[in-house]
């Protein structure tokens, strides 16, 4: 652990970590019963509704708590829809709309899992310009369009969807049912289920905040959640690698005594430390204008730290790092897949520059 944390967070972290370690083999077996069971336990442990206040039947935690949980989920690449559900719940509450808050409360009461359905094709900017259309209908809307690369759609009871409403991208809640077809896709990263979700006149509730806000805020929260996951995963990669360097003996001494390897580990620790600090800043600024810069910044930096840590983990493990049996490839693929799905760090850095107004014409 690179930073000291509060006793409460340390306790939460330990609890989540051991729970996930127990759950993993069951979850990977993939049976529907096993998935349901582990999700029920996650709900029971109070890990899901952290971003929902108690008066809405949530846990009444904050983003700092959720960050700890998501870091641990990232650390073991746990294939449970915790990131998706946490983000959806947090986004719903953050809209401030009556419909958004009511939806969050309902999801918490039901112990439902959710998925964020924003992306449509391989381009990043469609997150802000959805082609999925929302047409006004009795008390709500009917959504038509195709969402792709939806994380954890297979187990989701509910979808948070971005759709074009009166020419603006707005937020809608769609329940699994008529007009919703979920098609699971084969994936490069088998720890992260992805699906295509086809909406054909699916009934939806509009949950946007004032002035139709919600989509960008939800994406920023997603960036923060992904940053937490990346920090946890990078930390686990570094720990695995350090342990390997201590155990593995070649040329009559542990690999960790070779300075070149020591220094590369030090560089990983340094970038992880900076990423953890940036994550802390993003967590602290959620709900304020500063979050618009802090979130993509944290994600860009955390993603870079994760990508290097995962790559170095394979490299420093030598031959066994290249096998299916060893976990190294799973982290490598998670890092690569996240970057492919959500944009390269260079694009994210340009987003930071844009939001910080670095190149706005001088006044």
């Amino acid at each position, binding site marked *: 652990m*690179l*930073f*000291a944390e509060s006793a409460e967070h340390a306790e939460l972290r330990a609890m989540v970590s051991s729970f996930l370690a127990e759950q993993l083999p069951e979850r990977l077996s993939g049976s529907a019963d096993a998935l349901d069971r582990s999700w029920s336990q996650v709900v029971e442990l109070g890990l899901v509704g952290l971003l929902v206040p108690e008066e809405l039947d949530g846990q009444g935690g904050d983003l700092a708590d959720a960050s700890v949980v998501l870091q641990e989920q990232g650390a073991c690449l746990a294939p449970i829809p915790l990131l998706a559900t946490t983000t959806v719940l947090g986004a719903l509450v953050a809209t401030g709309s009556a419909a958004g808050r009511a939806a969050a409360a309902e999801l918490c009461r039901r112990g439902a899992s959710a998925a964020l359905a924003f992306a449509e094709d391989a381009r990043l900017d469609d997150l802000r310009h959805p082609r999925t259309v929302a047409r006004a209908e009795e008390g709500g809307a009917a959504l038509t369009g195709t969402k792709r690369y939806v994380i954890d759609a297979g187990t989701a009871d509910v979808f948070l969807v971005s759709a074009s409403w009166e020419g603006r991208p707005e937020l809608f809640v769609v329940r699994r049912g008529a007009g919703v077809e979920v098609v699971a896709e084969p994936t490069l990263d088998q720890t992260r289920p992805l699906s295509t979700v086809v909406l054909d006149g699916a009934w939806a509730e509009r949950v946007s905040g004032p002035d139709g806000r919600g989509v960008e805020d939800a994406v920023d929260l997603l960036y923060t959640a992904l940053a937490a996951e990346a920090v946890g995963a990078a930390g686990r990669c*570094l720990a695995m690698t*350090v342990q390997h*360097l*201590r155990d593995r003996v070649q040329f009559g*001494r*542990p690999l*960790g*005594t*070779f*300075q070149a*390897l*020591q*220094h590369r*580990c*030090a*560089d990983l*620790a*340094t970038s992880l*430390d*900076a990423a*953890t*600090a*940036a994550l*802390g*800043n993003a967590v602290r600024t959620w709900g304020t204008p500063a979050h618009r810069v802090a979130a993509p*910044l944290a994600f*860009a*930096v955390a993603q870079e730290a994760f990508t290097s840590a995962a790559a170095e983990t394979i490299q420093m493990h030598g031959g066994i790092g290249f096998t299916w049996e060893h976990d190294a490839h799973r982290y490598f693929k998670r890092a690569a897949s996240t970057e492919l799905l959500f944009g390269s760090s*260079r694009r994210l*850095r*340009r987003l*930071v*520059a844009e939001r*910080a107004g*670095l*190149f706005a014409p*001088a006044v």
Partner: protein
Amino acid sequence: MTTDRAVDDLRAEIRAWLAANLTGDFARLVGTGGPGSEHEDFDLRREWERRLGEGRWIGVGWPVEHGGRGASLPAQVAFHEEYARAGAPARVNHMGEQLLGPTIIEFGTVEQQERFLPPILRGEELWCQGYSEPDAGSDLAGVRTRAVMRDGRWHVTGQKVWTSLAQFADWCFVLARTDPGQERHRGLSYLLVPMRQEGVEVRPIVQLTGTSEFNEVFFDDAVAEEIVGAPGDGWRVALGTLAYERGASTLGQQIGFRRELDAVFAAARENGAIDDPDVRDRLTDAWIGLELLRDQAVASLAADGDPARGSISKLLWSHWHRDLGELAVDVLGAQGALAVSDPYELSAAQRLFLFSRADTIYAGASEIQRTIIAERLLGLPRGGGR
């Protein structure tokens, strides 16, 4: 960042004091001094140090019983931030205030505390650090400067190098070998040597900037009457000095960094380099890098003072600063290949570019910092041959 009343009060107090005192003759000191520019207006900055002493602004973090204000870490940060914000000149007695003073407080006798602390607090005695030698840089335990006891006093002979401001210092704290029978970090002692005596000669080293901040110091049977800690205890005392958290001043350092970054942005706007997408990406990276320095320093204040974490800070800021130096001249393009005038006057961007090459070397080279991180923070086994 949450602040408490004491921090806010100190911040307000120093802000007001600086506004009232960085005036008149002292006004021209704004922005002067600092790495690569230590020669700037030194005499007046020495006087400024005395003025700071009158205002009780030296030793802000020192315990109250030793003449300081006992300020908390966040309060010290606030002091450094305001000092930097006002563009107040680089201090002339960093060695005395930040290194020797705390060492005497921790390891010195009561007599030594009474003799040496007040003149530092009054800005009257300046100190330099006698650690590195030509054959002992990163490997400090290899020091060969010798000190022998004769007639109740230590007689020091040897050579120190990379001694900042030795030409101005009144005293030098010297790590010397007092027991020739012992090797490496054993048999070393921490001696206090008056600089203005016959056996001490200072020779400036010219750096690649053409300026001389650093010196060689030759001790030829120089006399020292004070030893801090017991003979043979020098390594422990010296390491105690090195471990002192510099975190408090790094947040003030970042205000200077912000100024430098703003200047690079301004230069890029002025000559149109800012329209180059590649330059924009690098400017973005520099901006993000500074945000990370701040986030990391803020997080470090909350964490414990593990010296190994200071290694991460040092790696981050020194490499950031070096990258900024490269960006600063790249923005100038071919114009960056021309000096300002003979005999070797350089622009601020060029000075930043050249002097920042030292950032990754002094105060613990990056290679050493990485080894510290690897061994002490990550728990990797100690490298071969050590």
